[in-house]
């Protein structure tokens, strides 16, 4: 019921998913440190964001480079509303009421404009629009704060200083920060379940038909442009919501945290690692990737300085933590090439040993 008749269909996969979700559910109790909390939150938010991207990439087969744009619209609408109206719930509501329709309308415009022709056209146009948006966001500094972005205060209830349940009751202090975490956790879970519902509905089946053979889907009488645009709008709305959650957690929105091309690459990589066309892949991809990003980068730094001490040529530069993207890119190419179905695809259909 809750999984919309699309269970993970693999015992190992189910166990991994349950472990990830259980760990996220109790994260504030088990790992109360600031860094661990940040990692857990980021996994939640990105799982939803990547799942919405999977709706586009995995289910309709159209590559969009504008997904971070919608994510950024969500982040910025919350940030600007809270910054200019002060920390109140009315401001949060205003941000939501302005941000979601804005993202949806923009997605509608891009979709109607570029989905008529072909996937490749859509990819190029989204790339162009997204880069223009990034420039716009960093130039209109009276509105967005430019490169510095906007920091803001949260409503009273969500602040870390607000103690809801004091420490001597449960052995753990439940404060506004923990409450924010659970808001994000539940909202992300609901979005992922909703997306699972969407892809398993008749509408989702049509999307898959379009992915497999657009011409044939059209010949069967489906209005493919309508379906693709609709999917684009849905994905944009979810992405904007994820952006809002991100802004609430960081109490900040800026070009680097919500709009940059690097985030787009992260999303692409998470979808491909997790497995395209399986909403579950988003959860696994996000968890693997973000854990690696946070803990492997430190390792890379250590190895890099060790190599520098040993006087090896070139290696320190190649292993410098800033070159993280280099290895990511290689990993990306390798996973598109060798594991096109991702972790979920592998677990569902393990490769048969060659006779």
């Amino acid at each position: 019921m809750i999984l919309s008749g699309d269970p993970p269909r693999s015992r190992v996969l189910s166990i991994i998913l349950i472990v990830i979700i259980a760990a996220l559910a109790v994260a504030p109790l088990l790992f109360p440190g600031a860094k661990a909390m940040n990692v857990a939150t980021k996994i939640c938010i990105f799982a939803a964001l990547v799942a919405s991207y999977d709706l586009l990439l995995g289910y309709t087969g159209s590559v969009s480079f504008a997904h971070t744009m919608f994510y950024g619209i969500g982040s910025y609408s919350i940030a600007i509303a809270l910054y200019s109206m002060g920390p109140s719930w009315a401001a949060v509501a205003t941000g939501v009421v302005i941000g979601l329709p804005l993202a949806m309308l923009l997605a509608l415009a891009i979709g109607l404009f570029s989905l008529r022709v072909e996937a490749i056209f859509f990819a190029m146009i989204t790339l162009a629009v997204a880069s223009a948006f990034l420039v716009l966001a960093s130039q209109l500094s009276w509105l967005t704060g430019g490169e510095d972005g906007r920091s803001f205060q949260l409503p009273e209830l969500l602040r870390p200083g607000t103690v809801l349940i004091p420490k001597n009751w449960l052995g753990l202090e439940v404060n506004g920060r923990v409450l924010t975490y659970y808001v994000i956790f539940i909202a992300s879970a609901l979005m992922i379940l909703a997306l699972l519902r969407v892809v398993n509905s008749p509408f989702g089946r049509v999307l898959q038909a379009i992915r497999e053979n657009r011409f044939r889907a059209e010949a069967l009488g489906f209005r493919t442009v309508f379906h693709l645009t609709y999917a684009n709008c849905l994905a944009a709305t979810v992405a904007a919501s994820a952006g809002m959650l991100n802004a609430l957690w960081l109490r900040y929105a800026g070009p680097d945290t919500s709009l940059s091309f690097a985030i787009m690459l992260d999303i692409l990589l998470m979808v491909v690692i997790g497995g395209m066309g399986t909403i579950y892949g988003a959860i696994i991809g996000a968890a693997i990737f973000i854990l690696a990003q946070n803990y492997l980068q430190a390792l890379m730094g250590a190895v890099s300085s060790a190599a520098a001490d040993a006087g090896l040529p070139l290696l320190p530069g190649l292993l410098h933590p800033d070159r993280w993207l280099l290895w990511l890119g290689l990993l990306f190419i390798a996973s598109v090439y060798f594991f096109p179905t991702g972790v979920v695809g592998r677990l569902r259909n393990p490769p048969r040993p060659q006779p």
Partner: protein
Amino acid sequence: MSELAATAALPKPKRDLLPVLLPAILALMMLPLIGSPSSWVTLTVASFAMGMMIFIMASGLTLVFGLMDVLNFGHGAFIAVGAYVATLVLLPLASWVQADSLLTNLAVLAPAAVLAMAVSGALGLVVERVLILPVYGQHLKQILMTTGGLIVAEQALYALWGPQIIPLPLPTSLRGSFIIGDVAIAKYRLLAMLVGLVVFAAIQLVLNRTKIGLLIRAGVENREMVEALGYRIRRLFLGVFMVGSGLAGLGGVMWALYREQVHASMGNDLTVLVFIVVIIGGLGSIGGCFIGALLVAMVANYGGFLVPKLALVSNILLMVAILMWRPRGLYAVTSR
């Protein structure tokens, strides 16, 4: 039954001249808006030069797409690689670059450009074999693979040359401008225009007057038929890909000299511009690409002069306007 005389000329395809006139119309329309004729001439020359440079970078991309239905999202990497390779020649020979003699300057510029083209062409060979060959005919994977390639190339440039911006001063004799009356025309822009026109003419000659060009055009129109006639179109495509990458490298050198700096992110930035040009021109069309590059450069220059704030989104607006008029770009070559 009517008979066609053997000597009768073949019916000529209808010429579609409207897009050709577009840049001229745009330029003339801007004249009253800008007011002063001297700044208009300067701006027009500037847009022409910029357009030529963009055209050089974009031409390879559009041919590759037209011929083999491969869209290379990593095209920008060749641009950046070309620029970096040029610094290998230009920086050690800085004394030649600074010498106040056109001949000495060109003697160092020409090898730099040739080397840049050779290296990016060779890189094109590797990219085609490693990244694109395994995913022929699968658009989704092509986009993903080449995007990954762009990232790897950009990061490798960072790792090899460091993250700082490398200044690349213009050769002495190409600095400054000719002053005719009260019109100033930068010397380097003239050179850029010249090179661009030569490249355009060369591509047109090869495409329209040689056997290889005939095969390429036939391949753009119907790949399978050319293959059925016994030509190895894969090899032809590899050649086009390498030439296209080499041209991107040349464009990168020229752009770096124009901006007088080299940075690894330039490939990424220019990719977007080049895409817009290719979309406007119609995927696969060299003529459309030429006009598209001119239009983009004109809008950037005139727009930057008249309404500086608009310059940020002017390219997108141009693209929207053109696609409203012709949804497949100015010249739709392929039926895809």
